[in-house]
């Protein structure tokens, strides 16, 4: 049994109420979307079929939800049991992030009432990256629910069930490592089929899966640092910096690998000059690269890594880097040809913010009522 405890305390804090307001506004626009069609809310069009509902909610949202995945690799593949105290919170955040990514995909689906066709063999197209991502993400959400179930079972005191689940949990943990490896890399493969519409600085016909996976892992580890730091501040928990700084070290390795592949690809394909000659895209590329390099510089220094505040800054920069990388590739430099442009509408942004607000509210309610976080010893 874990040492995690429900935090207790009031749920309806002013912050929580503010989140409820954001959520309500988002729901209003969502209602309009279902009554009058996607076009009544979102600015997507004939040239830009995917807006922020896909690119933020699904492509970026699930990468930000890779904390559970990243920690599972560390704990179970590299046998670092000392990270256990961080696991439940990371799993919960992953579950919420993925579940809401699923919701985002659903509301964006033009013919959502037929979504189950994805699961019917007679409809499946095995050449399609979208099929793999859809199925993989859906299965992973179920796996995350099972992985998080012990927290709930402990709360209701279902000891027998808890024991039985513990016997088979290893299998779900293994699947829970395989699935994100598959779909997080495939989110990069999407770009290949879009061909010339993806700017050359972000297009790579073979390296997309590797780039997507490495950045997803970096984002996963960074979100663990971010969440732990935030929870510590918000709920006055024990200091976990000794664990978090080690995670910082892992990020250094992954980030180095990423930058080598990223720039290697650009140089090998003779695209280096484009970094400086692509106008708006050059600015975005340099900004993106800077955001990747900042955490590398901070985390390489042992002293900065052990300082909670610089460590947090590194994690935040990494999260922005990975998100901007995805925004750049899928939207900001996406070019379907003359005559098309896209900028999200207020309603579109509010729906996404509403989803995020829901995620935050659920997280708060669950950590206060279920054994997720480690309560301070001095309390």
């Amino acid at each position, binding site marked *: 049994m874990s040492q995690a405890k429900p935090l207790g305390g009031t749920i309806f804090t002013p912050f929580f109420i503010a989140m409820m307001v954001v959520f309500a506004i988002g729901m209003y626009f969502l209602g309009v979307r279902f009554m009058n069609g996607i076009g009544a809310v979102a600015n997507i069009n004939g040239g830009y079929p995917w807006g922020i509902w896909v690119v933020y909610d699904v492509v970026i949202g699930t990468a930000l939800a890779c904390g559970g995945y990243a920690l599972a690799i560390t704990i179970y593949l590299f046998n670092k049991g000392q990270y256990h105290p961080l696991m439940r919170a990371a799993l919960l955040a992953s579950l919420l992030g993925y579940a809401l990514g699923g919701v985002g995909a659903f509301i964006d*689906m033009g013919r959502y009432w037929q979504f189950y066709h994805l699961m019917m063999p007679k409809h499946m197209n095995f*050449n399609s990256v979208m099929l793999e991502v859809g199925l993989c993400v859906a299965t992973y959400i179920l796996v995350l629910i099972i992985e998080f179930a012990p927290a709930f079972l402990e709360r209701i005191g279902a000891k027998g069930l808890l024991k039985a689940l513990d016997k088979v949990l290893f299998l779900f943990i293994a699947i829970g490592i395989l699935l994100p490896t598959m779909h997080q890399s495939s989110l990069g493969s999407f770009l290949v089929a879009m061909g010339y519409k993806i700017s050359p600085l972000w297009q790579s016909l073979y390296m997309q899966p590797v780039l997507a996976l490495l950045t997803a892992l970096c984002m996963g580890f960074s979100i663990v640092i971010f969440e732990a730091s935030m929870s510590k501040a918000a709920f006055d928990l024990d200091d976990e910096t000794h664990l978090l700084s080690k995670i910082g070290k892992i990020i250094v*390795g992954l980030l180095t690998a990423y930058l080598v592949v990223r720039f290697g690809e650009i140089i090998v394909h003779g695209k280096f000059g484009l970094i400086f000659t692509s106008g708006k895209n050059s600015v975005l590329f340099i900004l993106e690269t800077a955001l990747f390099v900042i955490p590398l510089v901070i985390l390489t220094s042992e002293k900065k890594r052990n300082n909670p505040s610089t460590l947090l800054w590194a994690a935040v920069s990494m999260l922005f880097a990975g998100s901007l990388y995805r925004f750049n590739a899928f939207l900001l430099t996406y070019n379907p*040809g003359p005559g*098309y442009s896209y900028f999200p509408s207020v309603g579109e942004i509010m729906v996404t913010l509403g989803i995020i607000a829901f995620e935050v509210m659920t997280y708060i309610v669950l950590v206060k009522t279920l054994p997720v976080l480690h309560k301070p010893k001095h309390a």
Partner: protein
Amino acid sequence: MMDRRSFLKTATLGTAAACVSTVAEARPNLEPSPEAVGMLYDSTLCVGCKACVSACKETNSMDPVIHGGNFQYDSAMDLSSDTLNVIKVYSNGTAEVKDSETDGFAFEKRSCMHCVDPGCVSVCPVTAMRKDPLTGIVTHHADACIGCRTCMGGCPYNVPQFEYDEAFGRIQKCQMCNQEGVERISKGGMTACAEVCPTGATLFGPRTQLLEEAKRRMTLKEGDTYNYPRGDISKPDSYHEKDLEANYHNHVWGEKEAGGTNVMHISAIPFDKLGMPPLEDRSYASMSETLQHTLYKGMALPAVALAGLTYMVKRNKDKDGEE
């Protein structure tokens, strides 16, 4: 130190595996079906009357798009969920001379190209885009479609269009007048746009014959007289003689681009000026499928990975003895 080194190792191994296997198993472009049907659009013959736009709407039961006070003609500017076929205008400088790149103008038809190796078919998760193995016609099946719009991103020509303004919208695209309920080609007929074209600028027929015809026209010179067929090239309704006013630009669009298309274009002006996308010979579908199948060939790689993962997780979990 241990974590970083092992992570780097894993990352490098994964990268190497991805590269090596990808190169080994490339899926080539699909080949045109010998019996494929298509169209040849000759921009130099087009007079911009838009008879094809109206005929297309009528055949597909779609409303005209009206701009400003112009109620005479359909004035759709681009493809949309109400417009499967559109005539666009290139113009430069004074726009006085037809088919001249400088100070001239030219027409360009936009409709589904019926790709030989279609991106839309490759990316659709639920097989709602289908290519007929014989005729090569690419049809859409809304009863299967989930509306994810991946086909729109995967089409190099931005052809599939979603009905964003409907609560229960669908994808629309040209299906070469052969969707269920219309089936002009299956019934032995030709496309509506080719049938009504007064000059034979839009010509229907077998891809092989159309390609021969296109190449024949490439050999003509300004001033030559040529007898242009109208309708279906395998059984033309009529011919008309015309003197060439401009040299053809020596390029049959769709012979090779991204694996080729069954709807081909020729013109006197380079195609990038007419808004055609920057495509190379290899289809994106073939590249994406090569990548996907290398990684997931018969799910063997994931299965092996899962076995290894399960073993390691079990071992490390037992050793841990908690949670």
